């Protein structure tokens, strides 16, 4: 009887144990599955985030200002294609469709899009959450480029580039207006003219600043030329020659046909009209010059007295800022090369930002009737600290 009861109890305990174990297994399995699911979901999202951050850091947009075309170039310089989410067209307005402002929805790797400065978007926002400034960067580069142009071509930085030398093609350009006066002794020479020999022949210049049609150079047609050398010092750069008009020919100032002999004292005033603009960036303006002189007589050219002066003349006020120049003379077979410079510090002279004419005066005095001046020529004038406005011939 007792064993019968025990058998029943044993069966019940086994049944209970099975149920309990089943429930425990269910709970453990569910918990395990839940934890695994959480871990998987978390690691999955973290992997996606890591991938996103990696792609985001690969997005690069380079903004380049093209000074020649005055264009703003936006280039995808990164390692991934860029999907444009939004384009800011001003500081307060944006468009959601990039095509409206001429941008594709996807900028492929290496692809470039050009805008004019006015049409350049303010900023481009990508779908990966990068915002690239475009217009401000272009304007900054444009300002830098202009300033660089000023520094290099205008010589603001204190060095001369080929762009701020008036000689050869820039000296003979269509925009040139040089007003000149020539004195032999104390007498003004009325029939003086500036001539230049180039590959087309001899050209002359005589201009009235108030009459732009007289600017530039014209071919000499009605006179024969009695000037043998267009490059007296054989420097491979021709010079503008002070010539005298005789009845039917053009001769050099010391030529007996000029009627001025003996020429022992000459003063040449050259006023280069509206030749330069001095910007607010300029600090020291330096004017360089080179004249070529031919002397006849026993004295070498360096024994002759040279006295150069330079003045800046403001166009708006006609105020003059003048200074004497330094010289260096070298000579070869009666040919003297007079080169030098004049320094005009801005804060000494207190000249204003303006358009200026430049006057260069060269006085030559041999001091003896036995030593005569035969030829006076200008090879170049160069500026630093100021921009030259005359454009060269193409």
């Amino acid at each position, binding site marked *: 009887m007792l064993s019968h009861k025990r058998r029943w109890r044993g069966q019940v305990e086994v049944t209970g144990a099975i*149920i309990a174990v089943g429930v425990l297994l269910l709970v453990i399995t569910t918990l395990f599955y*839940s934890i695994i699911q959480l871990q998987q979901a978390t690691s999955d*999202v*973290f992997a996606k985030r890591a991938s996103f951050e990696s792609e985001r850091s690969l997005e690069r947009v380079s903004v380049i200002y093209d000074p020649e075309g005055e264009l703003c170039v936006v280039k995808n310089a990164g390692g991934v294609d860029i999907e444009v989410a939004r384009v800011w067209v001003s*500081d307060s307005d944006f468009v959601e469709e990039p095509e409206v402002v001429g941008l594709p929805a996807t900028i492929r790797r290496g692809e470039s899009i050009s805008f004019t400065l006015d049409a350049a978007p303010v*900023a481009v926002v990508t779908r990966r959450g990068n915002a690239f400034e475009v217009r401000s960067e272009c304007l900054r580069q444009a300002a830098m480029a202009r300033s660089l142009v000023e520094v290099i071509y205008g010589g603001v930085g204190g060095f001369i580039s080929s762009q701020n030398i008036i000689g050869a093609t820039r000296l003979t350009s269509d925009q040139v207006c040089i007003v000149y006066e020539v004195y032999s002794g104390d007498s003004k020479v009325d029939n003086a003219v500036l001539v230049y020999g180039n590959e087309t022949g001899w050209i002359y210049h005589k201009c009235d600043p108030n009459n732009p049609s007289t600017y530039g150079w014209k071919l000499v047609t009605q006179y024969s030329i009695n000037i043998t050398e267009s490059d007296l010092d054989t420097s491979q750069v021709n010079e503008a020659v002070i010539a005298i008009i005789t009845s039917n020919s053009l001769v050099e100032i010391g030529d007996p046909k000029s009627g001025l002999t003996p020429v022992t004292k000459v003063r040449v005033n050259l006023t280069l009209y509206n030749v330069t603009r001095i910007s607010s960036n300029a600090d020291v303006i330096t004017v360089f010059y080179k004249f070529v002189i031919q002397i006849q007589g026993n004295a070498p050219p360096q024994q002759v007295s040279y006295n150069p002066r330079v003045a800046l003349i403001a166009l708006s006020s006609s105020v003059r800022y003048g200074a004497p120049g330094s010289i260096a003379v070298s000579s070869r077979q009666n040919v003297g090369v007079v080169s030098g410079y004049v320094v005009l510090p801005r804060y000494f002279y207190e000249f204003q930002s303006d358009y200026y004419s430049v006057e260069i005066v060269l006085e030559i005095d041999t001091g003896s009737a036995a030593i005569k001046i035969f030829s006076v020529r200008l090879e170049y004038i160069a500026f630093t600290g100021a921009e030259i406005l005359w454009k060269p011939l193409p």
Partner: protein
Amino acid sequence: MVACGREAVKRASLRGQSDLIGVVVLLGAVLIIGVAFAGMALTSVSTFIGVNRVKTALSEDQSSVFIYVERENATHTCLGVLRIVPDYRVYAIGLFTSDLSQDLSGAIIPPEPDTLVPRTIESNRIYRLYQGEYYSIPVKGLVNVYFLTDQAIRDYILQRKPLLVCVDKGGLPSDGYLVVFSFINNELYEVRGWYVKS
């Protein structure tokens, strides 16, 4: 002899009934205890799973939601809010003082129409995230937040496109803290925040 036999049969029958009743009682007790245990266990598991699901969702949101400064000037700061994994989730945006003691949502400007809709919600249903744990925010009473509209969720969250939210700096008495909340079980949980200088 016959009477003795009947007596024996009757006694045996009584014993059988007694055994049966014992077995039924034991089985019933086992079942009750088993079911109760199973019920408790399953309830605990269900709660655990529910909490885990919320944690999973919040963990996903914390990893997926990304805020960056898109434009900033003297008067406005515009932030981009981006979910890097497209998934249908409901988000709300609030603006508070940096210690979350004051509601500054009046300074929020939804720059795009039909993207944000204002709504008030009890502060005891809003949780801030601090060092990985969620705490109630110090603001009491009703709090103004902006919920993303269905259209915003469709056009931005599901398109993986950044949503623009601007803050009027003039409306900030001090530095502000813009919070992106995830709306889960009728409660708002902070998933990402950004300090905005006044």
